[in-house]
């Protein structure tokens, strides 16, 4: 019983990470058809925002010393700010470009951010202790669950409810949903395009920062490559979820987390190292049967 519960919590917390990542990517894709490859590097940049630039092996903690009620808003603001900055400096000039061009530009931007971090902090992973109280275990129904896992899941659920309320109940959310459905039409009806896109970038950046906080406290290291794996899974989640469908992205994120956790348990020990390869393989199989994704978003179907 205890171990089963442990698996459920593992799956949910891993799925939460993937779902948050997928949501950040799907939000931007929804409003401007941009597949943002720089998302993973924004995650890494948020973790490094806690440190003072230095290439020494020992991390010089700077903003990381703030109390948690200042630290969390600070990191969220860094993520949102960096994301909005990337839209202002780079993506604004690509409004008329086709999705493939924007995708490559974001790939290039991701590398620029990553190597900027490398220049400031070097490529060595650094150990940080971010919110250390969270690693204590708590006991639920006989299973020992790290407090962090519980908080990850709760935060994700809260974010999902908050975002749903935001998209359904506020004017800005309405505009964003309208823009995702049919951007040209929404503009004609008075939705201010640049404001909606900036809002999507800010939200997506804040989601990246939330992932950064979770990953940072989970692993206790800052590494310039740390966003890459989550980002890749998040991308896959947006594809199987149906590009641009927010609900699909979240659903697929949790599905991927579950599949990965279950494979970790049922695969023979020799094959466990290949868990990710099996997950990617499973994804390719899903795409054979549903190339348009699990929940295909309206307005993204190719029209003739």
């Amino acid at each position: 019983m205890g171990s089963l519960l442990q698996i459920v919590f593992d799956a949910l917390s891993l799925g939460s990470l993937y779902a948050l990542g997928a949501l950040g990517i799907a939000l931007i894709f929804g409003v401007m058809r941009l597949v943002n490859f720089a998302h993973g590097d924004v995650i890494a940049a948020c973790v490094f925002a806690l440190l003072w630039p230095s290439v020494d092996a020992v991390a010089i903690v700077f903003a990381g010393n703030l109390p948690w009620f200042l630290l969390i808003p600070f990191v969220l603001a860094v993520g949102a700010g960096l994301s909005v900055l990337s839209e202002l400096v780079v993506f604004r000039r690509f409004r008329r470009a086709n999705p493939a061009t924007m995708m490559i530009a974001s790939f290039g931007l991701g590398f620029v951010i990553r190597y900027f971090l490398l220049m400031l902090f070097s490529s060595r992973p650094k150990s940080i202790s971010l919110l250390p109280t969270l690693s204590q275990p708590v006991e639920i129904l006989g299973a020992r669950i790290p407090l962090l896992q519980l908080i990850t899941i709760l935060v994700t659920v809260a974010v999902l409810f908050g975002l749903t309320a935001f998209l359904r109940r506020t004017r800005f959310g309405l505009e964003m949903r309208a823009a995702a459905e049919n951007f040209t039409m929404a503009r004609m009806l008075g939705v201010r395009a640049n404001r909606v896109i900036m809002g999507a970038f800010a939200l997506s950046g804040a989601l990246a920062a939330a992932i950064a906080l979770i990953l940072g406290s989970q692993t206790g290291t800052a590494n310039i490559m740390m966003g890459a794996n989550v980002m890749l899974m998040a991308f896959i989640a947006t594809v199987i979820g149906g590009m641009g469908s927010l609900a699909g992205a979240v659903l697929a994120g949790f599905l991927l987390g579950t599949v990965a956790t279950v494979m970790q348990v049922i695969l023979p020990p020799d094959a466990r190292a290949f868990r990710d390869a099996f997950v990617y393989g499973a994804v390719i199989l899903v795409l054979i049967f549903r190339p348009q994704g699990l929940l295909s978003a309206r307005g993204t179907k190719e029209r003739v």
Partner: protein
Amino acid sequence: MSRSPLRRSLATPVLLGLILVAFALVAWAVGSKPFNQTIIDIFLKVIFAVGLWVFIGNSGVISFGHIAFACLGGYVAAWTTIKPMMKGISMPGLPDWLMQTEIPYWAAAAVGAGWAAVWALIFGAVLMRLSGIAASIATFAMLAMVNSIYSNWDSVTAATSSVVGIPIVRSVWPYLIAAILAVVLGWAYGISRHGLALRAARDEPTAAAASGVNIPRMRLIAFVVSGAIMGMGGALYAHSIGIVTPDTFYLGLTFITLSMLVVGGMGSLSGAVLGVLFLSSLIQGLRWLEAGVQVGTSTFALPGGVQEIALGAVMILILMFRPAGIMGNRELTLPRAGSDTPGRSGPTN
């Protein structure tokens, strides 16, 4: 025009080949070892960029996964050319017949191309059913999958540690021949029936499908051809440095080769080749600056990482202001040589 497409476009591979030969001659005349290595590196990048172009340029689908085929090719070189004794130590899990195999580097390159083509056929059969953006992300997943397998399959790939002992080929000529072979293959594919059909499908998918072009099938053919070229390039890459690790063939190389193709222009074979030459010169200049330059009495050096930042910035700027790249979808031809060269009209971006 009564001339066949073959003769009409023949100037392109000939001119590109001559440029490559000129580079090789310069390397031979200079005779310095580091310079020689730089030129070899350029030829390898030409092979990769042409391999990418065969698929991306003709189909219009961006692939982030082609370096996976270079990885497959690179490890074929490791499996087949390292001395059996050394293989036994680093990769004890190889089957017996492979353990005893020791073939020359050119044969390894051919086998690497074949092996990569087989896997391109398997992956492609699935991936080519997807459209546009979803296909791009799925190719990314393929790259991650291959990297994850090669980084963990301890007994056959020595996991993430380097596989050493691959015979190093230092002469510039084999790489020149391979680069020219890649260019000729790319050109021949471009003017073939399949290449033409695929470009039609890229520009007007509905009309092409209505005219009887089987789009997934055409994409699959391009995927296999480009996979084979990447496999050959990967095997030769292994022979140029003598070491392979899974991370040699991962995001870094994907980024560099893709930016070369984008900067040169995805729409034409000449763009692929000239993009490599242009960005390689830029990288070389930045490397020189990163190593430090004596200005008067003080040494001026750029911090590490500037190279990639500059590459990324050039790539983004080119995409902003000249999305069709340096060549603007045109091929390099003789003056008046043709108005109908293959790959002339590129994707409308």
